[in-house]
Structure formats: structure tokens, C-alpha cells
């Protein structure tokens, strides 16, 4: 391809994954996974525990070799050119990968030295990041004195020290309080506005919905959906009304009564009844009125936003998650 052609093309993807597979002994963690991530966007890798999200990240960050297929970061193959790839990426893992004996500032300096950022720049960058992650006050205390949320923030800050063009965040908000989570979301948006490409894994549909312009859902190592979050959501009833009818028999009767009033038939699971509503909680009053008039008042009522489980039910007809005995 000539230079002119290259420029005429739309931008090449920042991350390309093609036919990627990973087996650990007899366990298949990833099976022929394909996706592309456009530069300067947030890409969400969504799936339950053990779906293969972390395995994909570990292959893309050169920590694990794939069993088959191909993965490229900014055009560099992770197997052929691991050293080049390592120079282009930042990784914040599932557990806060910081040294607890080092202070926050020392942790950032260590990463700066190991990513070969110039010393004078590391100092500024560390101060900058500590400020941004609201760690300035704790900057010179050993990380062992930090709260869980502070450690997670320090971990993400460490990933940003070399200012990597591609950032991998493996469940970055797991275990964060809502305030820290919102702050991190805000930061991710800023990074992307500045041109960084972010691949994040999450178990929360809401997180993908908030941040990602593209979402791939994986389950048991396979891609089961590749869509925009909006389209994914529109494929399900938006709100779930859950009723505990006390007995399976009453649940079945209630399901019969309520059939037809919703976008999907009511879901019965033992004594529990699930209704998917596109109008939020509005149908609730009507539902309760109908049930009451048939002497079927529910034991408990819950209204919640759709969870990843609902996506899975929708996509596969089965609850997501580990089969017993599988390894993550």
C-alpha cells in the first residue's frame, strides 16, 4: 500500500484481534475471538467472571502468548514484536498492581524509570497524576496505608505514567465507591478526548453504556455480540420488574394473567417472576392492581435496571458465567 492510499483509507484500527484462541490444558479460555478497536475510542469487553476478558487483555499486553490467531496493537503483532507493543501500552489490572512498601510517588517514579521516561519528565508527570487522582495528600505515604479505592487509583495512575497511546483497563472500577468510579469515568473520557485508545473490561452493562462506543460481549471465550451499547440495550426490555410470588404455582398463574402486556413474555423462575418493561417502572401500578384483583399480591417487588445477566438471557437464553470447575 502506498503512502497516498494509506492516507485515503479510514484510520487503521488501534487494536486488531483475529481468530484469537487460548487454551490452558483442556480448558478453552478464548475461542476464535475477532474484534477491532478504532483509535481514540473506548471499547468495552463485556462478560461475566471467567468469560475470558482478562485472558484477552493479558494476550494483548504480551503477558500471555496466544494458542492461535493474531493480535496487533497499533499494527504491531503482540507475538512478533512484544517489546514494541510494551512501549505503546499501559495496563491497569484487576488487582491493584502497586508496591505497598513504596509511597504513591515512588510507585509512579518506579514505573517511569521502567518505561524509560526521562527523569525530569517523570517528576512532573508523577506530580500531575497524583493531583489528578486526588492522591497528592497521600503521595508520600507508603501505599500500604492507602484504602482500596486509593490503591486502585494509584494503579491506574501508574499505567498512565508513560502516557501510552493505548490503555488497557481490566475491570477498573470493580471495588470502587460510586464517587471514585465517576471520577475514573470522567478521566477516561478526558483521555479519549485527547486521542488515547482505551480497551476496558467490565461486568457492568452500565459502565460499558457510559463509556464505550463499541461493545463486544464474550461468554465462555466466545463473542456473542458485537454492537454499540445503545443497540445492545434496545435489544432488551430496558427495566426489569421482579416479583416474588411466594410459590411457583402462584408465579405461573400471575404469568398467565400478565402475558401480552409486555414486550416479552414474563419470565418465571420458581416462585419469581420477571417482567421486562420499556417504560421504566410505569407498568408497576397496573401490574399490582391486576394481581391484587386476582388475590395474587406478590411477597416482594423489585424494580431494577437491566444487568449483564439480562443481556445474557437475551443473547443466549442462558445465564452467563462460569460452568462449575472452569478456570478464569
Amino acid at each position, binding site marked *: 500500500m502506498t503512502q497516498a492510499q*494509506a492516507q485515503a483509507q479510514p*484510520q*487503521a*484500527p*488501534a487494536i486488531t484481534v483475529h481468530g484469537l484462541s487460548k487454551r490452558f490444558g483442556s480448558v478453552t479460555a478464548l475461542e476464535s475471538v475477532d474484534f477491532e478497536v478504532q*483509535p481514540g475510542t473506548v471499547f468495552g469487553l463485556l462478560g461475566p467472571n471467567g468469560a475470558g476478558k482478562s485472558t484477552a487483555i*493479558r494476550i494483548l*499486553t*504480551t*503477558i*500471555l502468548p496466544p494458542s492461535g490467531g493474531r493480535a*496487533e496493537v*497499533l*499494527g*504491531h503483532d503482540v507475538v512478533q514484536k512484544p*517489546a514494541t507493543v*510494551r*512501549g*505503546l*501500552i499501559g*495496563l491497569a*489490572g*484487576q*488487582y*491493584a*498492581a*502497586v*508496591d505497598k*512498601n*513504596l509511597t504513591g510517588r*515512588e510507585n509512579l517514579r*518506579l*514505573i517511569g*524509570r*521502567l*518505561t*524509560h*521516561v*526521562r527523569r525530569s*519528565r517523570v517528576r512532573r508527570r508523577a506530580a500531575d497524576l497524583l493531583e489528578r487522582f486526588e492522591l497528592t495528600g497521600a503521595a508520600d505515604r*507508603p501505599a500500604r496505608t492507602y484504602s482500596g479505592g486509593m490503591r486502585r487509583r494509584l*494503579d491506574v495512575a*501508574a499505567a498512565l505514567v*508513560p*502516557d501510552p*497511546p493505548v490503555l488497557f483497563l481490566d475491570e477498573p472500577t470493580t471495588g470502587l465507591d460510586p464517587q471514585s468510579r465517576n471520577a475514573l469515568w470522567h478521566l477516561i473520557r*478526558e*483521555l479519549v478526548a*485527547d*486521542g488515547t485508545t482505551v480497551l476496558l473490561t467490565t461486568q457492568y452493562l452500565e459502565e460499558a453504556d457510559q463509556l464505550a462506543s463499541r461493545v463486544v460481549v464474550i461468554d465462555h471465550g466466545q463473542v456473542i455480540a458485537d454492537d454499540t451499547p445503545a443497540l445492545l440495550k434496545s435489544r432488551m426490555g430496558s427495566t426489569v420488574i421482579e416479583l416474588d410470588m411466594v410459590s411457583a404455582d402462584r408465579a405461573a398463574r400471575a404469568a398467565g394473567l400478565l402475558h401480552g402486556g409486555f414486550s416479552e413474555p414474563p419470565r418465571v423462575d420458581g416462585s419469581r417472576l420477571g417482567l421486562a418493561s420499556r417504560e421504566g417502572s410505569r407498568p408497576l401500578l397496573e401490574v399490582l392492581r391486576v394481581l391484587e384483583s386476582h388475590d395474587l399480591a406478590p411477597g416482594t417487588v423489585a424494580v431494577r435496571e437491566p444487568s449483564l445477566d439480562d443481556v445474557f438471557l437475551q443473547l443466549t437464553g442462558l445465564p452467563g458465567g462460569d460452568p462449575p470447575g472452569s478456570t478464569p
Partner: protein
Amino acid sequence: MTETARLHRDGGPTGSADPREPLTGSAPRLVRTAQDGLAVAWRNLIGLRRVPRLLVFSTIQPLVFVLMFRYVFGGVVSPALHGVSYVDFLIPGIFVQTAVFGAMNTAIGLATDMQTGLMERFRSLPMARSAVLVGRTTADLVRNVFVVALMTGVGFAIGFRIHAGILSFLGGVLLVVAFGFAMSWIFAVVGMAVGDPETAQAAAFPVLAPLVFASAAFVPVNTMPGWLQAFAEHQPVSRTADAVRVLVLGGPVVSDVWQALAWDAGIVAVFAPLGVRLYRRAV
């Protein structure tokens, strides 16, 4: 977000050869490997300073040994030494023993790191693949210098004297430190192979004990049965202890010192590449 960092973005995947150029220094590969190793050593030494109980306990143990051997076994061993005082015989052996036991910390330290996410992060960084191990063994080397200095002080307090000149003595100390460094590489491999600190400790002891006790570290080997003597005479702890002894007490130096150094070089040549291999594959 700042200016320089963005330069490489414009190039995109087909852009310039080294997009990190504007940010990073450009040192030759060997220098960079050394810098990476030193950065990790710096991190480990900070840890040692912040968790001083580790240093305290790894210092108390040789202290107990030196007092116990001096006063419990000294009377029995002395007659076999033909005029050399037992404390002068003992201290070089204690130095070597300290270096060997200290190497256990290398295994424990690496195994501990492997249980945290830190090792994963290191493996995703553009640092030398040997840096984590070099950093650990180098930090343990620094710790050994400290402990040997302390042991020397204790030795002086209980009657140990230098008989062959201060330079020769310092040569002996260097030999101990070099041996400790070599042993650290063995235990780096143990730590990487087992992957958790408790197992590392349990796995290290059966390797350590015969090396330290079936040796010339505390007693002359000529009292041992013949089959054991053959091992005890030639194994690295004995070779090093004897070499340190001639450097401290005086005597023909050259052959002993070369044998000790040959062991050190041999051990590093085998175990360093093995350790790096394990690091590359560690999951």
C-alpha cells in the same frame, strides 16, 4: 494532557519507527538493562528499609549461630584446629552461612512478588526481562554487605582477629558477597518455580541445610566419614569458607580463591538464564 506525548498518535500504526522517541532517553541496550535492574533494586531496598523486621530477623539468626557455635561447640572443635583459635576459624564460616541463608530471602521476595499484580505489570512494561531478577539479587547483595559488616563487629567483640592484613580481609568480604550473589540466583530460580512465599521457604531449607552443615563452614571436614568428606570438601560453601579463611588468617591464597570464584561464575552462568526463562513464562 501534554504536547510531546501526542506526537506519536498522528503517525498511527504506520507511523515512525519508534513513536516513544520524544519521551525517552536513548541508551544502549546493555546500559538500559542495567538501569532497569537498578530501578527494581532501588524498589526492593526501599521495601527492606520500610519493613525493617525482615532485616532484623535475618540478622538475629546469624548472631544466634555465632554465639552458639563459639560457646557451645568451640571447646570440642578447637583441638582439631592445630593452634588456630576456633573463633577465627568460625567467623569466615559464619559469613558464608549468612550469605547462604540470606539467599532464602531472594526466593521469598520473588515468590511474594509473584502473588501480587505487580509481576503482571512488570511483564507488560518495556523493561529488560532480566530486570526483576537482577533487581532482587542486587538488593540482596546490598543487604549481605550490611549483614557481613555487622557480623564482623560481633566477631571482634567475641575475640575474632584479622591475621592477614586489612586488604586481604576486605578481599574475603568481597568473596562472601560474590558467593551470596551466586546463591541468590539459585534461590531466584526456586522462588520463580514455586511461586508462593511459604512454599519457597519450605523448599529452600532442604537445599540450604546440607550445603551449610555438610561443609567446612563450622568444623574441619576431616572428622567426617569418607563418603561425606568427598562432598563436603568440594562443595561451594566449603570452597568459599576455606578461601575466605586463607584471606583472613593468611596462607597460600590463589588456588582457594579461584576455586571459590569458579563456583560463583558457574552458578550464575547456569541459574541466571534459567531464572529469566522462568520469568518469561511465569503466568
